[in-house]
């Protein structure tokens, strides 16, 4: 069991959970605010499981909290997609939709993993992420096939985020499963939703890389971590 593979799963949910929680109190409607906060909560819960297992397997006395709060950007192994800023609500929901579509395929495969602990976390997460994908798909369809303005914003979000899709399907020995094998199911699902949303999938499959290997994160991650980590780093002895 690769510790890096576990950290990748946990960093994705941690970084996206933090990003989504930035909306708390700022969403366009109360129901959306609650939905985003609930999604963030699920993702942070999953983070505790993944990073908790990673810390235990690593055996260096670290915990999920140490991994979350006391690593710098270059030690994070999340996908570049999840660290992208929220920008507008359409961009946030498109990012969520692309991530959920990959996440659900990945967790479904991980639920059959030989390691019982990995399988258990994935089985638990599948239930929550099924819900996330349903909601983000519905929102992408409603806004894509909505007004002229909402359609234009969703197409612009798709065009801007598509170069971050390819990284989800790059794979190496540290991954817990073969991520490349998930692409056909992802393409089929995303294709159906985009068609219903009257959105056009970009032609180029050019992909920005470097998040999951840690080689090169975008500038946005460091800013996000500065906010997320300031309290435990400034007051290392602080407890709840």
């Amino acid at each position: 069991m690769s510790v890096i593979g576990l950290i990748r799963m946990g960093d994705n949910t941690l970084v996206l959970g933090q990003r989504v929680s930035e909306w708390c109190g700022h969403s366009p409607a109360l129901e959306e605010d609650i939905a985003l906060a609930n999604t963030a909560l699920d993702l942070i819960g999953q983070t505790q499981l993944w990073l908790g297992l990673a810390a235990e397997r690593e055996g260096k006395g670290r915990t999920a909290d140490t991994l979350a709060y006391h690593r710098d950007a270059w030690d994070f192994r999340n996908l570049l997609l999840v660290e992208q800023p929220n920008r507008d609500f359409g961009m946030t929901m498109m990012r969520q939709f692309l991530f959920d579509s990959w996440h659900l395929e990945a967790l479904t495969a991980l639920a059959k993993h030989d390691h019982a602990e990995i399988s258990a976390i994935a089985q638990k997460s599948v239930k929550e992420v099924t819900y996330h994908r349903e909601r983000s798909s519905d929102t992408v369809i409603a806004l894509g096939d909505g007004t002229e303005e909402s359609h234009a914003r969703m197409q612009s979000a798709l065009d801007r985020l598509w170069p971050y899709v390819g990284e989800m399907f790059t794979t190496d020995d540290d991954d817990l499963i073969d991520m490349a094998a998930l692409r056909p199911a992802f393409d089929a699902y995303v294709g159906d939703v985009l068609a219903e949303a009257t959105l056009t999938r970009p032609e180029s499959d050019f992909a920005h890389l470097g998040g999951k290997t840690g080689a090169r994160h975008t500038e946005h991650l460091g800013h996000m971590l500065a906010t997320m980590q300031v309290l435990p780093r400034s007051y290392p002895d602080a407890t709840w």
Partner: protein
Amino acid sequence: MVTTRPSVQDVWTWLAAVPDPEIPVISLIDLGIIRDVQWQGDTLEVTVTPTYSGCPATSIINIEIEAALRVNGIENLSLKRQIAPPWTTDWMSDAGKAKLESYGIAPPQPAGGPERCPHCQSTHVEKISQFGSTPCKAQWRCTNCLEPFDYFKCI
């Protein structure tokens, strides 16, 4: 060695009196999150499964289990977290579902939405949002009496 350990059945009865911190009308047993109670030597081991992985009530629930058992004289207690098989609303008791409805929360249905409005029993209901005030609930509305209500998500 002869010890006076309470029976496992007594422990289940005590836990049935511990309310869910978010929805106090149902107990932890009604919710189906207590998966096992057994003695390991002199230590009572209680196996608890979380409803949602990030549910903040989980830590409160553990504190309340501990408090309820301490009051009943349990000294050596071990709380075990079990995440597989994952919690499902199928484990909620029928009594719990009935209590939810009379409290104003539509109980989970395999069809994926509430069967009827918990206020006026009308079957004319519509979804407002897939998410609600806690991770386990969604927001629905009755198109007859026009009241919004919580629906306990079926997972």
